[in-house]
């Protein structure tokens, strides 16, 4: 499926050919990226300057139709030009970078999987779910329908010149959607890697759970020894005796405010002796997947960097697409309710325009929804890793207690994730976050605009066009 999309986007000149090879013929790579926009611009300026072949210049086209057609055309031009410039700016450097980073990540993941002995269960990861295929089919279906509708309607009107109006009506939206498709693909790859990391983290978590059972038994036994040990510790810390006391006092005074982190911090040293038993107990059965942790942390960091890269490339392209989607949807609803319900079937061209709006608003909305959904998923997956690590930390596994290094490492990871949270989220150049809150904000904005728009009194205009009596 993705292959088809890639071919398509190469064919209409949105991504360079041979995008994964660094050294290839420059001319061949970019030939499509020059030809198609030239074709588009020729069609656009041809229609606007020569005043021919455009829908707006037909006799059957009334003022409402002309306005909506012009809006559709110029909006499409805005969308296509911005997207194309950004794609040209991206060139294939990004794809090469992305693939190399991905390859690095995959190598490390593979290594980690071997350590974690997850190799056997690898088979099922390749198989996609039914929903995945269904989504692809659905998206392809609506795109083919939209294109077919537009093409057939235009062919009926213009005959063999239909390609010219087609280039300015449907093509920009198609191109924009395909770029969003690329974005979807990249985000889904990232999301997938996050998921893999999460399974690895989960594996460690499972192991600690398994090994946690004997720990509690020894916990009770070692109570006495712990006291001893504690007093010894106090003795060694005689230099800082005052501080210790004060710290204890402090603990007493703000028990409700202490959060988990704190608790861990303090109980950490108290439990220090437990691992002696534990270590002896489980040394043989212990599988060593926690050695993955540093690698996994690095991986997480790398994948996040990769998402920053991807977002930096595709985020700006999201903005015009979302804007176009918003405008087309609002006008689609407006035309449908205020024009088509009243005078539907009177004028063929007007109907065509209305349906075009409706079809493309639906299509772009579906694509935008998928983008938002995947970005949200990727965000959630990355958040989940931090959650799992926290869970591991709370279970106080043996490897953590035995070695301060692991504790500090995990703490460092969670802290770093806090920084990441403040720093990065999938967004359109900071204007809006790409998650479900965006849907809410656009819907609320759309409602208020619609209320204003629906108050427009169309009857007199329609009457003057002779559509209504």
């Amino acid at each position: 499926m993705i292959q088809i999309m890639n071919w398509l986007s190469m064919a209409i000149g949105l991504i360079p050919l041979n995008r994964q090879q660094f050294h290839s013929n420059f001319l061949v790579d970019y030939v499509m990226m020059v030809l198609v926009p030239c074709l588009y611009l020729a069609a656009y300026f041809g229609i606007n300057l020569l005043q021919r072949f455009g829908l707006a210049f037909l006799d059957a086209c009334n003022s409402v139709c002309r306005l909506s057609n012009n809006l559709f055309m110029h909006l499409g031009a805005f969308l296509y030009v911005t997207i194309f410039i950004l794609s040209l700016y991206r060139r294939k450097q990004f794809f090469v970078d992305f693939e190399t980073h991905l390859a690095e990540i995959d190598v490390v993941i593979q290594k980690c999987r071997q350590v974690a002995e997850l190799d056997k269960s690898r088979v099922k990861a390749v198989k996609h779910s039914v929903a995945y295929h269904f989504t692809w089919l659905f998206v392809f279906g609506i795109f083919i329908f939209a294109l077919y509708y537009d093409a057939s309607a235009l062919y009926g009107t213009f005959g063999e010149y239909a390609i010219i109006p087609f280039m300015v009506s449907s093509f920009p939206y198609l191109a924009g959607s395909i770029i969003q498709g690329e974005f979807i693909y990249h985000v889904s790859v990232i999301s997938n890697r996050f998921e893999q990391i999460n399974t690895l983290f989960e594996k460690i978590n499972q192991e600690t759970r398994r090994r946690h059972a004997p720990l509690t038994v020894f916990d009770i036994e070692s109570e006495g020894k712990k006291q001893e040990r504690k007093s010894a510790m106090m003795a060694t810390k005689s230099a800082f005796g005052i501080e210790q006391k004060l710290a204890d006092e402090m603990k007493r005074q703000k028990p409700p405010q202490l959060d988990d982190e704190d608790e861990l911090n303090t109980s950490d040293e108290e439990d220090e002796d437990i691992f002696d038993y534990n270590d002896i107990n489980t040394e043989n059965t212990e599988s060593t997947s926690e050695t993955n942790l540093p690698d996994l942390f690095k991986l997480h960091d790398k994948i996040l960097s990769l998402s920053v890269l991807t977002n930096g490339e595709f985020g700006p392209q999201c903005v015009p697409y979302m804007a176009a989607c918003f405008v087309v949807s609002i006008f689609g609803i407006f035309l449908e309710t205020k024009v088509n319900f009243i005078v539907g079937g009177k004028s063929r061209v007007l109907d065509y325009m209305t349906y075009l709006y409706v079809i493309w608003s639906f299509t772009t909305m579906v694509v935008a929804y998928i983008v938002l959904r995947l970005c949200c998923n990727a965000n959630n997956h990355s958040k989940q890793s931090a959650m799992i690590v926290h869970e591991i930390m709370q279970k106080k596994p043996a490897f953590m207690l035995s070695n301060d290094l692991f504790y500090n490492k995990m703490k460092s990871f969670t802290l770093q994730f806090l920084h990441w949270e403040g720093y990065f989220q999938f967004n359109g150049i900071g204007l809006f976050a790409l998650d479900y809150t965006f849907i809410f904000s656009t819907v609320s904005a759309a409602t208020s605009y619609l209320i204003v728009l629906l108050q427009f009194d169309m009857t007199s205009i329609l009457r003057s066009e002779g559509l209504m009596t």
Partner: protein
Amino acid sequence: MSQPTPLVQPLLLQFQQLFFLSKMVGVLPQNLDKFRYKNVLEKSRNGMLYMLGVLSIYVVLYNLLIYSFGEEDRTLKASQSTLTFVIGLFLTYIGLIMMATDQLTALFNQGQLGELYERIRVVDERLYREECLLDNSCIAKRIRIMLIMTFIFEISILVATYINLVDYTQWLSLLWIVSAVPTFVNTLDKIWFAVSLYALKERFEAINATLEDLVMEHEKYKAWLTGDDATTATVGNRTADSQQSSPPPQYDSNLEYLYKELGGIDTGSLRNSGGKNHNKVAPIAHSMNSFGETIPTPHKPQRMNTNPLINMAHESELNDAAKVEIKLNNLCQVHDEICEIGKAMNGLWSYPILSLMAYGFLIFTAQLYFLYCATQSQSIPSLFRSAKNPFITVIVLVYTSGKCIYLIYLSWKTSLASKRTGISLHKCGVVADDNLLYEIVNHLSLKLLNHSVDFSACGFFTLDMETLYGVSGGITSYLIILIQFNLAAQQAKDAIQSFNSFNDTAGFVGAATEMDNNSSTLYDMITTTMMTPTY
């Protein structure tokens, strides 16, 4: 490295042209001679008087302009609804208000501005001591580009409007030049802010780059180490010796430090020359730069030469961690200091920014609305005559929104860069994989989480891209409302004609009971019918 000459060039050195220009126009009151010879901004009584004089001249001229061009608005007042007229009056003065805010704020802050740049200089010195070099020369370039852009925009708007839309047979029409003054003064003031903000962003990025460089160095070093003797740095080794807390990682970072120091000793900027060429043209003495640039290639061999030294000298373990700690501590403190400078800067410019944002919002909306009015061949306020021509409108819009958006974008980027530091710091910890270093990093990371630079306009709203999103929504909805009312008025005018020709009272009463829109058009119709005798 401690020479009697100052370690770093002050940032203000790059501001020469901008300062002279803004001094001349009356944006800044500070002392000219002191700036020329010592590159410091100092209070000056004469400058203050000059500035006040300039400000009053501007105010007088602007009022004269409004008065002389207001002749055409007399009829407009009668024909328009009161709301539109009041808004128009407010819009004519917002530019003046903005300019006055800028100049008065500059007057009040004249002492603190100098302190701000002094603090930046101190930060630069500290950064230099941490071998974190940054390039101020591009700031001068930036200033030049921005000045040129300003001139192009201002002059193109002024000339195009003057030629196309002003009646230049009268000599009073020369007053039209004054209409460009407020925006020009404002832009100069904002260039100061933008460039200083950019400088802060660069400093943040320099800190990040230093941290990332540490990571890179260490990674390279590790790669070399594993190539050399694979036994030391393998992963499996670590769990085996859990009793001794962790000798191998300490060993690693120890070596890293030593290597770093060795790299740092012989040439200050040698380390940077390999990876990042653009990063090393420094605010330091120029001999250093040329030296660094001439020998980019010996970098690798030298690293190989240091290896025996490293192997010999790895007994100073504690010393190593302490050194790294000091360095990270210092970077963290510098980060905090830059954050504080950012806050202080935001405080100094908070009122000008607020007025700029208000101006941007109003002018953007007004210009688009008047453009619409002009396309419907309605009369518009004389000061907004540039809206009669769509191309001039586009230039005006790009200029106004460019100013606002650039500031917002820059503050957003700056606060992102400051947040990035924490991530880079953690990378250091992860790559070294040393217990002691982890503790340091965790501690500092908590500190960094509490450093914040948020740029806001007087605390009313933060300057980030989300605000821009909200503002663009606001502009659109206001435009729609305005245009809708305009349309209603337009329909009313059409209705008058039909009303006059048919004079059918029955239809009149019937229409009055229709929906709101109709009655509002009716209202407009009635008012306009009553107004028609007046003109």
